């Protein structure tokens, strides 16, 4: 299973963290520090796997961002590598050629999308189309609620005028 997902920028800034195994806040900080030290220093033509404390971390760099997923030693590394790519493709489709800035200012969207993709550290949906549809549905629910709220406040404003 995937124990956690990390998005770290080349400067070591954290852009997203998601923990599927229980780690305390202290442990989380430590893990991030250790792994950024290991992964950001790796050269370009090396493999996408790092062995770390009896686990494996599968990572891939996209422009300035490193996507990392920590898995068990006996898990299938390439499968997880492609979950990362699958995630990136979905982000790309959602934002329209995604860049780091999108993920900084819309970090909550990245969380929504990840939740549609992975639960309990396992892949939930492998169709990009389905994920896109579900996220769009969520967005429209939020929009609808907002409109309702604003029309409601209009009515109140009208009534109290």
């Amino acid at each position, binding site marked *: 299973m995937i124990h956690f997902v990390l998005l770290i920028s080349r400067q070591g800034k954290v852009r997203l963290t998601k923990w599927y195994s229980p780690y305390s806040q202290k442990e989380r900080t430590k893990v991030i520090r250790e792994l950024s030290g290991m992964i950001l220093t790796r050269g370009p033509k090396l493999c996408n*796997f790092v062995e770390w404390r009896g686990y494996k971390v599968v990572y891939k760099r996209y422009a300035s961002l490193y996507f990392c997923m920590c898995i068990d030693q006996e898990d299938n590394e390439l499968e997880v590598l492609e979950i990362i790519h699958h995630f990136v493709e979905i982000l790309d489709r959602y934002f329209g050629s995604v860049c780091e800035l999108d993920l900084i200012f819309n970090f909550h969207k990245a969380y929504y999308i990840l939740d549609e993709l992975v639960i309990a550290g396992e892949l939930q949906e492998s169709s990009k189309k389905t994920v896109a549809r579900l996220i769009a549905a969520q967005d429209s629910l939020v929009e609808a609620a907002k409109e309702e709220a604003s029309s409601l406040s209009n009515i109140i404003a009208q009534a109290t005028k």
Partner: protein
Amino acid sequence: MALSGMRGLSVFISDIRNCQNKEQERLRVDKELGNVRTRFKNEKGLTPYEKKKYVWKMLYIYMLGYDVDFGHMEAVSLISAPKYPEKQVGYIVTSCLLNENHDFLRLAINTVRNDIIGRNETFQCLALTLVGNIGGREFAESLAPDVQKLLISSSCRPLVRKKAALCLLRLFRKNPDVVNVDGWSDRMAQLLDERDFGVLTSCMSLLVALVASNHEAYWSCLPKCVKVLERLARNQDIPQEYTYYGIPSPWLQVKTMRSLQYFPTIEDPSTRRSLFEVLQRILMGTDVVKNVNKNNASHAVLFEALALVMHLDAEKEMMSQCVALLGKFIAVREPNIRYLGLENMTRMLMVTDVQDIIKRHQAQIITSLKDPDISIRRRALDLLYGMCDVSNAKDIVEELLQYLSTAEFVMREELSLKIAILAEKFAPDLSWYVDVILQLIDKAGDFVSDDIWFRVVQFVTNNEDLQPYAALKSREYLDKPAIHETMVKVSSYILGEYSHLLARRPGCSPKEIFSLIHEKLPTVSTSTIPILLSTYAKILMHTQPPDPELQNQILAIFRKYESCIDAEIQQRAVEYLELSKKGAALMDVLAEMPKFPERQSSLIKKAEDTEADTAEQSAIRLRTQQQTSNALAVTDQPSANGTLPVSHLGLVKVPSMTNADRNLADQRESEPDGTLTVVDPQPPSVPSPDVLGDLLGPLAIEGPQPAATLPAHNLSSGVGIAPNAEDALALAPIEEQTATVQPIGNIAERFQALVLKDSGILYEDPYIQIGTKAEWRAHHGRLVLFLGNKNTAPLVSVQALILPPSHLRIELSLVPETIPPRAQVQCPLEVVNLRPSRDVAVLDFSYNFGAQLVNVKLRLPAILNKFLQPITVSAEEFFPQWRSLSGPPLKLQEVVRGVRPMSLLEMTNLFNSLRLMVCPGLDPNANNLVASTTFYSDSTRAMLCLVRIETDPADRTQLRMTVASGDPTLTFELKEFIKEQLIIIPTAPTAAAPPVPQPTSSSPPVSDPGALLAGLL
């Protein structure tokens, strides 16, 4: 795309991004945290929108790595908001900020459950996602049935059901009992007929976890998995959106093949045939293509297929096809494939006999040891280690030694250990072995543990042919300018014993050897000096005819150290000086060391212990054991000294040992507690068993050690030398004929550790390991015993009997009579605490291994403090309670003496681990501790207990303790319990107290209170 409407958040993020340095960022974050905190304080004024905004800000700050220790409540409370936008934020932020152990999460269980059983599909999704991501045990117990209902419901849409499947997987991981095997296995099989691929993918993950824990129950899923796989592999009827770079869902393929790996075999011939067709198609049809992602996906499938083929141990043709593929992979340019090729070759070694084919790739694998990528080098090292045998050991070890000089620091330790093990296991001849180890010490002395050089000494001692060679080599190394201290130890030991064999060579006269060694003395630490002193004594003895000049020199050194502050050095100096006056007796005492009895290498044992206990790995072990070189077998040929059954202490042989004594001792050694007849000229000076016990700690060679040898050591240490690490080497047990099985590790210590924590090892011996894991809730507890058979033969007549004290009700589930080879069985125990008492339950455990009956009585860590629930009380709560419990019998005070000295911090930690929550700041005196806890039992129910400890900074061995509670028995028992914990010495001597398993006939040893209790019961 801007954050829809949340300007405040965007502005904050921009501010952070514009910060020039970390300091500015911190200031900005602090300001924002202050702002959020004040806004949360008067929550009434907050609109849902604002609340959402602040909660997002908190998450952002948290992600930046700052501590956010407030506002969790606000995040959780958003979950119960009626509208979707707030609810969504509440769920997401909660699942990011909290983990399953968080108390706030408990508050949300009801709301979450309402969302799950409610009719709103979107709410169901949110709730299932949260539970799937951070749900803990409590969620498992209260939600599993609802989640199961959703998963099998025909009215739910796929988007809910796929989440329900993974949510159930999480709950199953947290508590396997929530899935009732009988009812669920048919359902699971039905779920595999699912048409929606999202649901099917999720269900397949669930299945993997289920079959991993119990494949028997899910046989009916096997043919369905094969069907799914066939459909995918033939690309039949797969919706376009579920193909990934043209490959039908690679993830589903991988998961399906993974679940098949948990079934031991496939019996049905037609299913088997279909599966092999699919596998064949995957193995043959996977080509390397240009597109990276397509390549990765197809190889993910390919590697999983390889694993499945290995598991099913197919017809040999398919296996060799696999090796051929892997051989290709380890030479490709793509680093991922190279890495996986090496990794899977190592796995392949473990399951089948393909070593010879893999050996053909040895050169390529050695090249990978020089790869620029450390991940790949690690794999190469593991593979080389796994494929090493007598035929290629020389080449491989030489490569590893070469690599050692350039390897990065993090790998050296592992590398050194592996070299040492391979050299020992597969040495084609002994001189090579000595060469390798000396080189190893030379290149990486810091990483060579004592075990390794002890082992060299053993081999050299036991093999006469080797002695001159080893002495010569040692001399060569000593000539080098800067050598590692371990090298000084081993070479001076060997030269002390055997340098006289070199006497005729140039530069090897006793005098020259002496001055060569003596040069090193100023550079070594105190632990090495005693070895050098022994060496000097030996040289002195071997110098015939005596050389007065050398003699004076050496005696002067002894005199110098006669008043050394280090007791060990001083004792040796004094004794050698005295002995040197005894003339002929000196010769006798300092004669060459007798041979060591044969025993398992502690190194290899250590390596075996650290390897995970999977059946696969046991296969490789079996194989390597069969092929181990016998060059290093320690033969039992009679030596010049004979095999002395007594006192192999230090370098010294007991002088007045006559042949008659020897025979007598020989006769007696088989009696378990027969004291060996050692005529000892002086009364024992040092030995209290405790001291000896501690010193025995670093005992290097872990042969089963009959307790009977211990008295002998004690007696003789008057002549000899108090054992230190180096002597421990020599503390060889006599031939192991005794039937006693010795425990590994100290039982009392293990128990003591379990007093403080809830899982760990309760008992271990060469055949079995008993672990426990416990969970306690109020006055109920569940303790699971893990009985692990460490052998390749079954343990039979296994019996476990619980002798509970009257205050505990314990139910033990059925214990199987036989534990299969290398298997682990779990036996859960249900415990109910009826009333306060500090008596301990005892597990009477026995089994047969071969002809040996082993019986041990073990204390179970179901003790008083497990029924405590730490609780923090404020000053306002504490003092009225404290005063209301005015005196005996509800409040008891005692001055405790003989307390194990510890700092206040240590004591606080101890109390906290005993589940007595120390409340800082309650007592005005900084030297005092106040702790509070709740005790649960059937008779008392929840009862608050308060403890106050007044320490004396001038004398840490005494303190005054006051314990108060609403129940007189509880007060008394808790007071006594804490006292025991404070006085107890957790590092109980390993060898002195023999709480060892005895043959059933003998009475339980008196030193173990648990066993004593068992005797009384």
